[in-house]
């Protein structure tokens, strides 16, 4: 059942009515950094019923990257022969010895790119530099990395490599639900962009094995609200199902071309996640036939300690086990100007969104607003 987009006041009233009928607190988890930011930006939390919460899961690509992987990247970026190409969000993530931004200020050759193919072009135009592409992200950005590797192969480039820490969202969702320290959630708001690639049917396993409702949602305020309403109504009716509320972009089987590209270049393997440890088959690694594009191999990178900054609870935040203000560093030692954990750095990070847009819930504001809307209607 897809509810489409109804007028916002109508959806808000329905959401409050449905929540009131529940008589207990419930929580849904979004596993997409863009959802996190969109929800904060439109003030969604401030209009939600008191007993319905939307908490952030492991959806921000920078935030889920293990500290060891970030340290590896910064070390590599600081090497004289290397030009490191990275998406802008990675620039300020702190490692044990500063960030890429600091390394760039110290003279390292670090380029912010908007597409993986920009890195390939850079390698082509600078044949004497070793160009490394820092490949982070979920199924959304991984096909672009795969395309870059294929392009480099076709061009016969021997000065282009990728340091890949791509992640898969489904194994993380399963790991969360299987953990002993499991977040108390009643459903998932599934990621819009990732679902374009993997398709809506991919979430059936979550619905069936874990008895957890899944709704795939878009990013506009109205689409977010309709997904939340759909989830709440499912819980209220005691139904567990999979609903695609973003059919304009997401098809049941996803994007076969992108999937084929991923299949061609990568194979799944166990990957480390910040705060969640090693999750089986949750990462994408270059296949043997593309091994010459593996920066870890090219530069003989040694495994580094995966120790997170002392006091930082980013790992618990992205697992839905803690809210940013529960961190002793939040807003004090850790701010966007001087970040300690990645969740404060990335534009899609939960801590950054809390810090930038204010507290999640503005007391009874949602109810007050709803009353106003009702008055206007009557």
């Amino acid at each position, binding site marked *: 059942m897809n509810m489409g987009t109804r007028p916002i006041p109508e959806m*808000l009233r329905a959401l409050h009515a449905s929540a009131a009928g529940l008589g207990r607190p419930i929580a849904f988890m979004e596993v997409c950094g863009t959802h996190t930011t969109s929800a904060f930006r439109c*003030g969604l939390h401030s*209009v939600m019923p008191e007993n319905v919460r939307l908490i952030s899961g492991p959806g921000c690509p920078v935030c889920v990257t293990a500290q060891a992987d970030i340290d590896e990247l910064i070390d590599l970026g600081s090497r004289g022969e290397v030009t490191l190409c990275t998406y802008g969000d990675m620039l300020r993530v702190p490692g044990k010895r500063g960030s890429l931004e600091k390394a*760039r200020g110290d003279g390292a050759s670090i380029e912010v790119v908007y597409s993986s193919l920009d890195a390939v072009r850079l390698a082509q135009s600078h044949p004497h530099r070793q160009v490394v592409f820092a490949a982070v992200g979920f199924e959304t950005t991984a096909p672009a990395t795969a395309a870059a590797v294929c392009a480099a192969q076709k061009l016969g480039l021997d000065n282009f490599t990728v340091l890949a820490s791509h992640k898969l969202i489904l194994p993380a969702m399963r790991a969360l639900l299987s953990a002993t320290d499991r977040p108390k959630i009643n459903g998932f708001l599934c990621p819009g962009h990732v679902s374009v690639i993997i398709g809506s049917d991919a979430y059936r396993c979550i619905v069936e094995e874990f008895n957890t409702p899944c709704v795939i949602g878009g990013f506009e305020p109205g689409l977010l609200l309709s997904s939340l309403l759909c989830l709440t109504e499912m819980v209220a009716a005691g139904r567990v199902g999979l609903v695609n509320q973003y059919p304009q972009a997401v098809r049941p089987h996803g994007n076969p071309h992108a999937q084929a590209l991923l299949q061609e270049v990568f194979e799944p393997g166990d990957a480390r996640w910040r705060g969640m440890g090693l999750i089986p088959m949750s990462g994408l690694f270059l296949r043997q036939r593309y091994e010459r594009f593996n920066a870890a191999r090219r530069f003989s990178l040694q495994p580094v300690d995966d120790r997170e900054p002392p006091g930082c609870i980013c790992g618990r935040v992205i697992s839905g086990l803690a809210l940013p203000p529960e961190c002793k560093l939040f807003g004090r030692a850790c*701010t966007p*100007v001087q970040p300690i954990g990645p969740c404060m750095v990335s534009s899609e990070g939960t801590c950054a969104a809390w810090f930038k*847009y*204010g507290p999640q819930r*503005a007391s009874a504001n949602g109810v007050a607003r709803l009353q106003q809307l009702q008055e206007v209607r009557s």
Partner: protein
Amino acid sequence: MTIQKAQMYSTPTVAHPPATFPRVVLAHGGGGQLTDILINELVLPRFANPVLTDLLDSGITQDGGLALTIDSYVVQPLFFPGGDIGRLAVSGTVNDLAVSGATPLGLAFSMILAEGLPRQILERVLDSVAATATEAGVRVITGDTKVVGRGQADGLYLTTAGVGKMETGPQPHPNQVAPGDVLLINGSVGEHGLAVMLAREMPEVQSVLRSDAAPLNGLIAHLRAAVPGVLFMRDPTRGGLAGVVADLATRTGHRIVLEERCIPIRREARHAADMLGLDPLDIANEGKVLVVVRPTEAQAALKALQAHPLGHQAAIIGHVSTQQDGLCVLETEIGGQRIVQKPYGEQLPRIC
């Protein structure tokens, strides 16, 4: 209102830890919180004086007669949809004078050129400077030229200083802003930064977005003729509308409420910002002015702005609330609320 200061885990003012940076990073030039840190830590302590510490768009001589301002321009690419570095160099400086309540008298214009710069490019830039100065009704009355070795500068950099005569009557100043006052803007926001960024980073993307770079002294003179009591004006350049309004809230100590549905943003700008993961409110403008007037003059100000070619899409976008918490709060389209803060720093490097 329901967002209370006590509930805030942060305030727009960031505590400045001592000696926060051993080296300059790009974000120090972003016009956001990090720029503030650089200025507060290094510049103000050395040059502190009452005129400078007021941190307005222009310094006003203590007799209140003259305004002086200066700006450097390092934008890349030099030419972008809707403008170029020459048009920016005149508009930016003229606008800094105009929003301070001054009529521009003359410009000083300085160029740093890189060895090897094609003559044709320099000619195009200078033609644009001349055309924009004519449009603004101001003349370049002095200048300077330097050339540095190949590779020591990226094409060309410009610096424009401007001197202006202060209008008689009360000067626009944050101190005049009081609860109940109304905020207006002369048109849609975010287009300059997005147009430059798309031109630089994604030249293959076809977009209708164009920089709004324009000298606003004509529009502002027209507004002030209709509404002599303009309380405050500022051009939301780097840091965007968010930066300017959050700054005003911090500085006055009043809460300022913005109405999201009233802020003009082109659909194309919203989509481009979404694609880049940016908030349109944080993005630079070069032909926009935020205006604050008394509530009794709001309609007259709106009419005056809308009657000018650079203000057709002017709108009332918010008001100053009676709450004294120095926050800027956005009433969102779905009826929610969120805080608006000054951006941290580098989002779009070298956009002006």
